[in-house]
């Protein structure tokens, strides 16, 4: 048996009920992502990008099929086990930042580790310095710009030193200059060995990723697909990724 990829979804189906009709968000979707890759998932709104990230991050479960991350079949884990898995392995970054409005920047960074025996305040500070917010420790999210909020969210995603970072439209709500800086930061993290998966509309953002996957109506239309037999390329001329 060939080595399993770091992340794989096998024949994942996910449908949602919208009003009285059912919408298929992921339609027998299979993909394999290797450790250390930086993958951009592109597609129009409602194509299934967010659903895919939610499946990989264990925020949601497929109706059928399997999702494996680091050899753990996370679709078989219960809600609480998946929460623990996320805590130890995954950093989430959202389009709307999803910071806690009542907490300062540094407290927001500390949220994922607030129940640890020793709060790693020093590390949180270093992460904020790293994302360029060394002078904003005590600012509430409401006092920060969109770009700054997203940086706080990135620092929060890094506090547990996760191996996998999932970013859903991370530059969707910030100006293009800041977006470029944030993508550079993602590249840096990727160079340090972290696996990144970004769902994005933005071609420039996607262009900085090493692998690009396009999805539409819950199916992959371009990119690397993964099946039980191993990796294969859906479109050999473009599918292997976008070189810099």
């Amino acid at each position, binding site marked *: 048996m060939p080595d399993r990829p770091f992340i794989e979804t096998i024949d994942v189906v996910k449908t949602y009920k919208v009003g009285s009709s059912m919408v298929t968000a992921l339609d027998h979707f299979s993909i394999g992502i290797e450790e250390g890759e930086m993958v951009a998932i592109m597609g129009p709104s409602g194509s299934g990008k967010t659903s895919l990230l*939610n499946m990989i*991050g264990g*925020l*949601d479960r497929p109706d059928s099929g399997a999702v494996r991350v680091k050899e753990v079949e996370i679709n078989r884990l219960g*809600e*609480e086990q998946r*929460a*623990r*898995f*996320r*805590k*130890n392995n*995954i950093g*989430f970054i*959202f389009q*709307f930042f*999803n*910071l*806690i*409005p*009542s*907490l*300062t920047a*540094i*407290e927001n960074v*500390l*949220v*994922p580790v*607030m*129940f640890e025996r020793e*709060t790693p*305040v*020093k590390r*949180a*500070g270093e992460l904020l310095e790293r994302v360029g917010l060394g002078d904003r*420790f*005590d600012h*509430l999210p409401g006092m920060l710009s969109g770009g700054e909020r997203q940086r706080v969210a990135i620092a*929060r995603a890094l506090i*547990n030193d996760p191996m996998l970072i999932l970013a859903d439209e991370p530059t969707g709500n910030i100006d293009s200059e800041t977006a470029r800086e944030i993508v550079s930061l993602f590249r840096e993290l990727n160079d340090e060995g972290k696996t990144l998966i970004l769902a994005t509309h933005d071609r420039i953002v996607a262009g900085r990723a090493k692998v690009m996957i396009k999805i539409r109506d819950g199916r992959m239309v371009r990119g690397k697909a993964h099946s039980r037999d191993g990796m294969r390329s859906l479109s050999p001329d473009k599918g292997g990724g976008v070189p810099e």
Partner: protein
Amino acid sequence: MNETDRSFNSATYALSHIRHDLFRSITTVVTISLTIAFILLTTSLLFGLVNEISETDEKASILDGMIPGSVSMFEEFRIDGSQLSKESKASLVNYLLVTSVLVIMVAFFIMFNTMSISVQERRGEIGVLRSVGFSSREVMKIFLTEGGVIGMISFLSALFLGTPFIVNLAAYLIERGDGGIFFVQPMIPLQLVAIIGALTMLLTVFTTYLAAKKTLRVRPVEMLRPTR
């Protein structure tokens, strides 16, 4: 501020939220304080009655020492409680007992509604906490801490702001059959304060628990959806 001096735990989290959403926190505290004040009102009358009305004068003077002017305004109405028939006393005690129980039940539902609304408003926040890996238990811990703090503030404000009103204005005047007026001095002894304090904490924490438990049943991905 030196970053090593910082501490961050569920209490910090709760206090930050109370401070940040001050208007909401104040309305919650006022709502709960009022319900507690009503519990205090009926139970203090009950205590006053049960603790032998004939001794009103002695007790009233002690009370008057604590809160000046609290009793003197009713001086002219005071009649020895022993003049009241046993049946009247018993029915009065029963009446106050039933009222107290009803008021406690009403308080429970008011608190449950209040806590449900404030937890419901923070679905998105719970979704974020779940997404960064909080267990239900950890989310619950944050909300219970906050419920406890709100309960404590509400209890103290009901006690310190409500007591003067209760002892001054809530004197219980009952017409006797012969046209005289019977006077019950509300009593707020320490044991009642302890009971009401424990009851407030129990009610706020329990209603917060029920409200949070209901919301925690929702899948994290649903909670993170911006509109619903």
